[in-house]
């Protein structure tokens, strides 16, 4: 088996006139956690469905653990665990019954299946709720059962579609810890789609997908390193006026994202007093920070990430 859990190259998929994926490349190393980051409608879910063997690509090549989902879907299904964005548990069954059913579909049975269910329930801290109907579980608990279900057959790759959607911040952190644990204990590669920047920051590698194209792909720190030094954000009611003044009086280029003016600069700290002196009457806050993945997205696409994802 190769070191690559997922290898995608030159992948294209259209729905009618709309090109959902346009010559996409994506590699995920074994035992790594990777994020597919992008605004909604960027093509993440289309790519997810192709990897999960539920959709055929128009052209390009896809290999998961060396297997082609088009010609050998059952081989791929054997090595991939899938966690969908919408719940796939039977609400009328208990957590353990859901796992058992899923195991049967993968040809697992008898005592070895029961043992494996026990391991999964314990690993995801749901053993005390194992015999409760899924409809009585909280969103966070149900999501854990979903992941336990995906991991039950012992896949080499775990695919998750927007795993933290609908979870509160505590459950989100919890999910993250679980994923990190399971990656180590089960030696599984994880690929998640997400439109949450914090989530992508925690991954080994981030591929940013926008309008069906890969606009950047690297480790989070390398991506952020591509943005110049530091980022100054100025919150204001009159962003355009600020941009003009900054250009005239300090000879700096700035761009506007919503009601925030952004300035990228290698020496951000030195600029703050000057900006404060020039703009004191027009601004609400000035903040200095290291670049985030949002800055990377803005630099690559010229658009705000948040505004896109709200649509």
């Amino acid at each position: 088996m190769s070191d690559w859990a997922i290898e995608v190259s030159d992948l294209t998929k259209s729905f009618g006139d709309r090109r959902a994926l346009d010559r996409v490349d994506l590699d995920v190393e074994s035992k790594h956690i990777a994020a597919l980051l992008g605004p909604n409608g960027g093509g993440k879910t289309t790519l997810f469905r192709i990897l999960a063997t539920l959709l055929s690509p128009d052209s390009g090549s896809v290999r998961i653990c060396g297997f082609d989902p088009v010609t050998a879907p059952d081989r791929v299904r054997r090595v991939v665990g899938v966690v969908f964005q919408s719940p796939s548990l039977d609400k009328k069954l208990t957590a353990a019954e859901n796992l058992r059913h899923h195991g049967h579909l993968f040809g697992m049975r008898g005592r070895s299946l029961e043992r494996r269910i026990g391991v999964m329930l314990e690993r995801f801290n749901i053993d005390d709720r194992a015999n409760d109907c899924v409809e009585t579980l909280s969103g966070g608990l149900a999501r854990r059962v979903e992941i336990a279900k995906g991991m039950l057959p012992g896949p080499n790759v775990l695919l998750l579609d927007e795993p933290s959607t609908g979870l509160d911040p505590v459950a989100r952190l919890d999910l993250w810890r679980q994923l990190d644990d399971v990656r180590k204990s089960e030696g599984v590669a994880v690929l998640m789609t997400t439109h949450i920047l914090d989530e992508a920051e925690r991954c080994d590698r981030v591929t940013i997908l926008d309008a069906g194209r890969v606009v950047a792909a690297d480790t989070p720190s390398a991506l952020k390193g591509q943005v110049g030094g530091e980022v100054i954000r100025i919150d204001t009611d009159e962003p355009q006026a600020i941009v003009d003044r900054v250009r005239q009086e300090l000879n700096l280029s700035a761009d506007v994202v919503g009601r925030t003016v952004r300035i990228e600069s290698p020496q951000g700290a030195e600029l703050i007093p000057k900006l404060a002196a020039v703009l004191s009457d027009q601004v609400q806050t000035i903040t200095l920070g290291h670049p985030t993945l949002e800055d990377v997205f803005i630099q690559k696409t010229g658009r705000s990430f948040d505004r896109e994802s709200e649509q």
Partner: protein
Amino acid sequence: MNATVALQRAPVSLAVYSMWRRELTRFWRQKSRLFGAVATPLIFWLVLGAGFGRSFSSSVATTDTSYLEYFFPGTVVLAVLFTAIYSTISVIEDRQEGFLQGVMVAPVSRGGIVAGKMLGATTLAIAQGILMLLVAPILGIPCSPLSLAYALLALFGVAFGLSGLGLMIAWTMDSTSGFHAIMNLLLMPMWLLSGAVFPISEAHPIIKVLMYANPLTYGVSAFRFGLYHNAETPPTPAAPITACILVTALFALAMVMGSIRLANRTSRNGR
């Protein structure tokens, strides 16, 4: 784990069993379904049977059975129809609620999934039928183990055929609302024109043609004939009894194979 990873496809029997068991568990946990599946046909039987009884008395009562008794096998078939159909249309909910997507990423044939679902629906429908048959001795139908076995065999054929039909319709549908139209325009007329409510001999010539074209007619006939196996004057079937059995079996086979093929064919691209 390694032993199972070596196999590409999981054994279909295990998937069929698991889907079947899920249907039964779900049915058992939804008490309203349990109640509705028994109560609805019984109410049909009592209200319609008692109401129609008067107007039909001249025609049917000549064979010295009351209309309530004539209508009884039709009621059992209605119970089977309700349960088989409502169990199979739950595949629409499975799809909407997301359960089916989890099944679709398993290395198992779609036909096996559908077969398990169908078997579950058939089991529930037959159980319903047996529950209804408990009323038969009260009505004075001369039951014996043999006659009940004949009747159940016929009911099996009917249940399989209807489950298969329900699944074929439901598999391609996106919402349950469309299914109600099918229920009213296809399935209820199928039942009404099967000899369950009035005998074929009494029907208008055009209706007669429809009744002979209706595969359910032969199932109802076979069931009625089996039930009265011990009677001195068994009811006249719609066609020679072997033909009735053959048509019922063929219809069941066609529906079962049809739904399995449909599922296997539409396995890609989200469906």
